[in-house]
């Protein structure tokens, strides 16, 4: 087992676009679930809208990359409104059911051959990197040190991703430490008490749904920036992976989702390298190489269950402040 | 008529501390004994913990310290379904019948742990509440408050309880139906059922009970036989005063 190689890959994954994308998605979910108490089980759908909005914006509407990104964000905001307006007046479980269904509907719409011209159906979309790469200010070449060696495109993607992440984190932090955030905190605990004080509870919940959705869409865009948009990615499992990252770090904090995503992806990378290598080295004789890859995901599922049962507040969270734990 | 002091202890509540929210105790060290065949009344101001005391017997509130025994067996941490099997019957104040079921089905629900005894228990219940037998097919949701309460009591009686807990049986009833409710509880008790009744109408409650407990701030403020408490000037002044006094 080549440990140097494994370590290199793992370290590199710390700032990979996938990690940054997960951090943004988890941050968006933190706004929904951690701060507003909304049980959104379709965060994958918001990410999909961001990614597809971006790709379709470039390929079908010939928009420059930054306008296409805005299109992706706007699509997510509209989606949040469509989901929220009918369901937020009902019990929380209804939102959960509706969001799972909605995300699946979206994925199937992207998958169906009816819209093949626009969405690429099962093949997805690719080849939209033209204007993005053209706008890259970094001159051609390879930069970095140690495990962090990327070319100018790789750095451009990472820099933008990090900027997006910082913007989102600052926004969420500002929001939650303001009087607006205080009202949301009250709503999380007892909606009626906050209503009795004259606050429009529905409007706050809807706004939170939109804000979180837009941030998650940004995650989808960052994920799609350097590669391709594939409908097979935005499945319900993705939602559960984001939840794992979020709960691991701490649901109702700003840094929780970031740290959780980091650990999640580094671990994924480590396991993704270690397990197959272990199989090759004969340490796991009952498994094949491909099965070892799948084992990763099984382990994620188990980890999610363990976190929820034994440490729902995650690493950074405060158990006393949790409302979804009795 | 009333059981002697040597009759065996059915329910023994010893120094119970309990509450719903963490850190907030409604009961602050409350004790109560009920002997076989007795009618026990619990009165006191709102917020004193009367309903909470009943709920702590029935496993519906966190008992933080103290013990509750039934016929000598510790039932403090048991849940409601286990308690019903052991013979604790509960008549809640609200939501006490299945509105979408008929009276007959409600009574059958009371007996679902021992369905074979249905005919025998039905006879017992209709001997106390004659009119029930004539209206078995009526939907419980169409009944008035007083009628529902009668059905709720009957349902609890179907499983031949060792002790019947009643939470404010007269609540929400017109004046004359309140009197009727108290008479019903008295009839149930006369038929041999040990009863523990929480009530807001303190005077009526004390008139029909064998022994009473006055709760205040989650503690036993006064206790004695029903007659003793009715004649106690302190109790009268603080808890039984008619409105104008």
């Amino acid at each position, binding site marked *: 087992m080549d440990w140097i190689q494994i370590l290199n890959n793992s370290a590199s994954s710390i700032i990979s676009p996938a990690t940054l994308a997960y951090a943004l998605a988890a941050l968006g979910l933190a706004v929904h679930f951690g701060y507003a108490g909304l049980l959104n089980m379709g965060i994958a759908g918001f990410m999909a809208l961001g990614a597809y909005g971006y790709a379709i914006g470039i390929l079908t509407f010939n928009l420059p990359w930054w306008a296409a990104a805005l299109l992706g964000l706007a699509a997510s905001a509209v989606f949040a409104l469509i989901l929220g307006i009918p369901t937020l007046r009902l019990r929380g479980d209804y939102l959960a059911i509706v969001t799972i269904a909605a995300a699946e509907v979206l994925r199937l719409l992207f998958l169906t051959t009816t819209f093949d011209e626009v969405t690429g159906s099962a093949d997805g979309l690719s080849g939209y990197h033209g204007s993005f790469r053209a706008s890259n200010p970094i001159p051609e070449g390879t930069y970095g040190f140690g495990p962090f060696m990327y070319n100018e495109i790789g750095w451009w993607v990472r820099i933008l991703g990090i900027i997006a992440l910082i913007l989102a984190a600052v926004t969420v932090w500002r929001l939650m430490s303001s009087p*607006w955030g205080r009202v949301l*905190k009250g709503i999380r605990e007892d909606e009626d008490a906050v209503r*009795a004080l004259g606050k429009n509870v529905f409007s706050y919940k809807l706004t939170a749904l939109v804000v979180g959705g837009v941030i998650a869409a940004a995650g989808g865009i960052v994920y799609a920036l350097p590669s391709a948009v594939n409908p097979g990615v935005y499945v319900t499992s993705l939602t559960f992976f984001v939840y794992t990252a979020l709960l691991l770090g701490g649901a109702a904090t700003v840094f929780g989702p970031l740290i959780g995503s980091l650990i999640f992806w580094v671990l994924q990378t480590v396991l993704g390298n270690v397990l197959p290598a272990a199989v090759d080295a004969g340490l796991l004789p009952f498994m094949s190489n491909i099965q070892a890859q799948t084992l990763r995901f099984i382990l994620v599922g188990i980890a999610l269950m363990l976190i929820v049962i034994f440490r729902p507040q995650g690493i950074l969270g405060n158990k006393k402040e949790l409302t979804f734990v009795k | 008529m009333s059981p002697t002091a040597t009759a065996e202890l059915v329910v023994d509540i010893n120094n119970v501390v309990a509450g719903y929210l963490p850190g907030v105790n409604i009961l602050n060290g409350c004790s109560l004994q009920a002997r076989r065949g007795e009618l026990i009344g619990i009165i006191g101001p709102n917020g004193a913990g009367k309903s909470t005391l009943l709920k702590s017997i029935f496993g519906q509130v966190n008992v933080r310290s103290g013990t509750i025994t039934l016929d000598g067996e510790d039932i403090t941490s048991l849940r409601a379904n286990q308690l019903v099997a052991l013979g604790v019957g509960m008549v809640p104040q609200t939501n006490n019948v299945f509105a979408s079921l008929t009276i007959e089905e409600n009574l059958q629900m009371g007996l679902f742990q021992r369905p074979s005894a249905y005919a025998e228990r039905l006879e017992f219940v209709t001997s106390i509440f004659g009119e029930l037998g004539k209206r078995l097919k009526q939907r419980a949701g169409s009944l008035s408050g007083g009628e529902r309460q009668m059905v709720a009591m009957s349902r609890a009686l179907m499983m031949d309880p060792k002790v019947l807990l009643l939470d404010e049986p007269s609540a*929400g009833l017109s*004046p004359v139906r309140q009197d009727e409710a108290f008479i019903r509880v008295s009839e149930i008790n006369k038929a041999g059922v040990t009863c523990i009744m929480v009530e807001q109408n303190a005077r009526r409650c004390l*008139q029909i009970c064998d022994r009473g407990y006055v709760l205040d701030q989650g503690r036993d403020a006064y206790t004695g036989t029903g007659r003793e408490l009715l*004649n106690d000037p302190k109790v009268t002044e603080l808890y039984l005063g008619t409105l104008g006094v």
Partner: protein
Amino acid sequence: MSSDITPPVERPKTTGLHVGEAAPGVAKTDPIIVVDGVRRTFGGLTAVNVDHLEIPRGAITALIGPNGAGKTTLFNLLTGFDRPDAGSWTFDGKSISGMPAFKVARLGQVRTFQLTKALGLLTVLENMKLGAKHQIGERFWQSLFPFFWRRQELEIEDRAVGILKKFKLDAKSEDFAASLSGGQRKLLEMARALMSEPQLVMLDEPMAGVNPALTQSLLEHILDLKDEGMTVLFVEHDMHMVRHIADWVIVMAEGRVVAEGDPITVMRNPAVIDAYLGAHQELDLGVVTGRYEAEDADPTTDALASDTVEVSDIEEEASEESK
């Protein structure tokens, strides 16, 4: 208990509130709320059935009645927390039937809850600040830039601390509300309600579960509200408290208003006494049912009558009622 309470300085009761004879539904000289034909049923049960009711402005009105009479349901209807089956009501002349709770609260009405809703996961001070109205920082875009709301936040904090001092909760301002005792939480809920500078304060059983040491101060605070020009409507079971601070009393039973008037007169009204104590106070049900002998009868009852009356007489009277 509460009978030991006498306010240190007797404050005068407000009189002249009604127009004409004091009967259920009587008009008031200056009503702040007028209720018409409100009905609310749950399944087959009528919880509230009020033909006409007016709440007087600037006075302390008590809403009393036995458990299950519909008082809290009426509260919930008036404050927008429940929808009636029929009926309408106005607040300050403006129709508010069907208005959602948060809009009603913005009009100048504020309420507390029977099971107190002090937000335990927020600090005492945060609870207080939440109560203030028209907060710039509560608007989404402005909230992102503290520059817009910082100054108002400080003003709100000053006001909050001032009220907390009056309620003797200022020392606890940084503690989580969950760490307060039950009575302190009630005080906090009342203090928080004052942050919105309301016209009408509706208190649902403010005394329930509060230990006697705090009852006195709670009473004083309610009287202060009237002195500061607010109208108070409260639900209570403690008759001594009602007698001490209420200017006007409304009695509900089985969903209807059965009596209205000043506390002394109302509490002597036979219909009211019946609603609380049962139809025949002269009877001792223990004697009627044969559990006790006539010579042991409850001294406040007629032993002979109790001995003579049969259980079947009462049962017949009850079944007569439903015809």
